[in-house]
């Protein structure tokens, strides 16, 4: 139980619709992985990857961003540790919530535990540019979910 990592996303701005942090496409997402003091296993490293899912009326399409090695050092049992890292976000696809389909993102970190089986956790985030001045229609936008 105590071997479960926690992931905290830092920075960004809070998306009003979902309450999760929002980041500019192509920007850097700062985050930190925390491991408790009473963990029992040794891990060969920690990696982070962003995943997107496009979901509609049944089928799901998905993709991944860059895989980033948070640490290549062995993580032995011991005191609690924090592993800060910066994740380079992809430029697209942007988060979207329309009438028929949604595109969502999450950042997943995985502890490489070899034969023990990997441990992973994830946090959702919004990948979308900040609102700008100019004509808006709402529905066809990344802000989304606005009635026609």
């Amino acid at each position, binding site marked *: 139980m105590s071997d479960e990592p926690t992931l905290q996303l830092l920075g960004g701005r809070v998306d009003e619709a979902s309450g999760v942090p929002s980041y500019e496409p192509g920007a850097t997402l700062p985050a930190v992985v925390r491991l408790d003091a009473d963990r029992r296993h040794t891990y060969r490293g920690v990696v982070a990857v962003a995943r997107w899912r496009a979901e509609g009326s049944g089928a799901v399409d998905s993709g991944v961003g860059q895989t980033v090695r948070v640490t290549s050092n062995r993580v032995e049992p011991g005191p609690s540790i924090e592993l800060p890292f910066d994740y380079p976000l992809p430029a697209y696809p942007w988060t979207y919530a329309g009438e*028929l389909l949604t595109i969502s993102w999450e950042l997943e970190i995985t502890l490489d535990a070899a034969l023990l089986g990997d441990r992973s956790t994830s946090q959702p985030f919004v990948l979308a540019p900040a609102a700008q001045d100019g004509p808006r*229609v709402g529905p066809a936008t990344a*802000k989304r979910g606005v009635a026609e």
Partner: protein
Amino acid sequence: MRGCSGSIGCLALLALVLVGLDEVLDSPLRVLLAVVGLFGLWLAWTSGAAMARRSARPKLTARPDVLQPGQTVTVGYDSSVPTHIRLICRESTRRPAGNGREVTDTHDWVVEDVAGARQGELEMTIPTDAMHSFATRHHEILWVVEAQAENGPRGTRGPAGRVELTVLPVPYTP
């Protein structure tokens, strides 16, 4: 196409005239010519009708057709009848429907709608907060300008023309 359709029609009529000349043809050949003639007339009729439909379809151009949110596209249109011109963001999803078939669901967000257009140019703007174009195996977000003739036959919607746009994601500038 028009010349081809006319040629087929002339050949078909010639075949039918030959069928009528008793002194020229024996009966087996007359039957064959009659079939060829009738087929030719049908072909001429259908291709002519298709050509008429095509000529009634509003013609559209878009410059540029690759752009970013907030940018403006100049739409050129040419129609013989009053036409609705729409800037549309179209969501579509494909889902399995059994027996190996797939069904596509679509939803249109009409961003701009200009009625009564015949010939000319107009400007349409991609909203600044618009979603970029997106396409995967089962999901698509398509930006398109469509022109729909307002008066189809017997109250139906008239022929439509369309041009697809590619809306790019805005590059990040810190």
